[in-house]
């Protein structure tokens, strides 16, 4: 059984929206974080990249920003600019009961 398991395909997992924070420096390196280890590093880098791009492009458009809040129905992303880098907080939200009748 153990040998067979070696060749078994890993079962897909559903991505849970994490709660926690991380910091990213001006070069896009993720420095510290409190996000669960199961949350993909690629997605953390992706969030960091989008947030940093938003801050830098806002400054270029003469709209300098120090803080950013992005709202989704299931997640809130809050970010604070740190000299080219950022500290980013992720907080899952529990949406209210479904609106659709079935």
């Amino acid at each position: 059984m153990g040998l067979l398991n070696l060749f078994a395909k890993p079962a897909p997992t559903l991505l849970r929206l994490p709660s926690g924070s991380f910091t990213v420096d001006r070069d896009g390196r993720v420095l510290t974080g409190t996000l669960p280890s199961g949350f993909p590093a690629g997605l953390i880098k992706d969030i960091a990249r989008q947030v940093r791009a938003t801050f830098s492009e806002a400054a270029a458009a003469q709209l300098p920003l120090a803080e950013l809040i992005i709202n989704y129905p299931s997640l809130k992303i809050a970010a604070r600019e740190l000299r080219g880098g950022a500290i980013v907080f992720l907080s899952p939200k529990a949406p209210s009961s479904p609106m659709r009748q079935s």
Partner: protein
Amino acid sequence: MDKRPKILLADDDPDVLDMYREILAQLPSHPEIHTASSGSRAIAMLEAEPFQLLICDLKMPKMDGLQVLAIVRRKYPQLRTVALTAEVDEQFRSRAYALGADLFWYKPATEQETKMFLECLESLLGRETEGGFRGMQSKSLVDIIQLECISQSSSVLRITNGSLTGKIWIQNGEVVDAEATDLRGEAAFQRILSWKAGNFEMLPAEPSRPRTVFKSYNALLLESAQAFDESRGSMTAEGAPQPASSPLAVLSRLQGVEFVLSMKSGQGGYQVARGLENPERVATWARQNLERFRALGDRLGAGPLEKIEGFGPQRHVALACQNDTEFCVGWQHSLTPEQVGESMRKLLALWAS
């Protein structure tokens, strides 16, 4: 309807696909059942031909069911969707509904559950797909109110239209109160009736709700129809509002607004009210951000982007979308984040009205 409905079933397990193909074949409407073994394959099939219903497993490799639902809701808003999973977790139920799923169902394990599942699917297939309020597709909001009043029902209708929410209290077949954004009573009722589409939810009656509306429901509906006709009369032949009304200028007069920039979704160009020295640059920045965070939301399976708020040393900025118009609004630096959020809600409500 003589045409067989088409169902697309997406699951990465071929055995499950075979099993559900057999189960779905029992549906009274005898649907055509197509299968996809991955999320990306399902999206490709939806692009190739129209389907009435997508049943999607949540746990799939590469592109999971939540990501599929996020894409589907944006690209095919009329498609009925069912999220199917064996994963017992309330977070996934909430997220599936937030992504616009019509039904969230744990994979049926008993004959009774399978029967109920099939009944729900048949009900979904039976609904009309054209316009109206989700939750009762073939009916307009006027129809729903009339149905409630004629049947002498008592209930609370909660209606959402984008970021706007309204409630109508019905007691023994009479409209007794209404609430929409900052309006109450008849004004709120008329505002809600002016919304062309949205979602509704029927809540339990609240008999203790104080009465603020004293007209009959017929009179209220008649007034709404008249108001609708008048608003149509003020449109130009091309359907565009007359320049004198200048809705963007009205928005820019809201307290705390520094600038308002509006853009049509998916089109170039912009319209700006109040002075912006570099509107083109700001419009480009706003578009890029809305696009990038929509895409990020899809990758995270977090649902459609609601709004972006930025707080800066000179001014605050908020980005949001109302129907097919995207807004970038500059707010005075003196406003608190809560005031920016509240003012943005008012601005969008004003636009919707």
